[in-house]
């Protein structure tokens, strides 16, 4: 696969391309099983035993166990899949979004009420031209 992409300079953004999808396949496959109520119950009852069913690598497994939502993206998770785990834990999508930013829950909610994260200063990690 080609190396550098035209979106790689967008800050704080994990575009779910083939590089990430390939790495994250076992992780996302596990996460999707949480669509089933019985599976959610089994996972809650014994997380370790449930995770043993899937070939997650050590980093993926650790990210899941520690609920490190940003780390899950870094090791190939897709946010629509990680949300299933967040929902299993009783979180809203705003809780999940906020936790990835390191902001406190109330601060993130207030930022959204104030019109969201501004685009100015958030277009690129390089010099802003947009």
């Amino acid at each position, binding site marked *: 696969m080609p190396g550098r992409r035209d979106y790689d300079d967008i800050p704080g953004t994990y575009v779910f391309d083939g590089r990430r999808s390939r790495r994250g396949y076992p992780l996302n496959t596990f996460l999707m099983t949480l669509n089933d109520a019985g599976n959610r119950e089994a996972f809650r009852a014994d997380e370790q035993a449930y995770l043993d069913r899937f070939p997650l690598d050590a980093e993926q497994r650790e990210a899941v166990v520690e609920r490190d939502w940003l780390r899950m993206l870094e090791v190939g998770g897709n946010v629509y899949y990680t949300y*299933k785990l967040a929902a299993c834990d009783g979180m809203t999508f705003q809780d999940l979004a906020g936790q990835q930013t390191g902001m406190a829950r109330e601060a993130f909610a207030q930022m959204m009420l104030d019109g969201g994260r501004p685009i100015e200063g958030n277009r690129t990690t390089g010099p802003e031209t947009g």
Partner: protein
Amino acid sequence: MARLVGGVGCSHVPAVGVAIDKGTTGDPYWAPYFTKVVPAREWMAEVDPDVCIVVYNDHASAFGLDVIPTFALGLADAFPPADEGYGPRPVPPVLGHPELAWHLAESLILDEFDLTLVNEMPVDHGLTVPLSVMFGQPEAWPCRVVPLLVNVVQYPPPTGHRCYRLGQAIARAVAAFEGDEKVVVFGTGGMSHQLQGQRAGLVNVEFDTAFLDGLVADPEAVARIPHVEYLREAGSEGIELVMWLVMRGALPTAVREVHRATHVPTSNTHNGLLVLEPR
């Protein structure tokens, strides 16, 4: 022949569905948004379509990463609401229109749009939230629905241009359908939002406004927006806006803007609602 009587662009924010399902639409947080929805609902009630073709994306509900169709069409008699990880929404089953769906399948594939055909699948908030926005909480949905899925989760989604052309092909197919159905096409998702990473919470009202203006007046130009611009300007999940181009492509060049409403925030999203009629 069947008639395309309108197009709806509509965000599909899960929390909007939750607000409707739990009866909290009158709360201070939600009331300003739901007030803006009223004229669109009135339009829909007046148009009273027989079928809605709802262009949306699945969010790891019916499709995982094992098979990822770029475009897929639902052919079933009925589609149950999906359990997306927190139990299915308490909404009626979505009744399909297999005759129109099969006609679309044959027409679009022979028109060189290579759709994946789906006989069984649940439908998630991507499809059911726009129905709730436009129809409220009926005991049964007042029209048939043909689901048309677009992959926007696995990068890359189809280009905006491809989506626009697909919409044009849908218009040709509907016009050739031997029936007297009134058809409305939905394009769903967007507008600017980012749910992932440290940049989560991004909103870009300026981009969204230009997108809506262009979608109405100069869709060919909007269809040329490259993916990197959506990702950068509208957020990683804002790229869902390509699905609005399917809806726009299904309408003639000249349209009347019946209603436009935007609202920040609905959860993490700059919410958009747009109603267009052929002129």
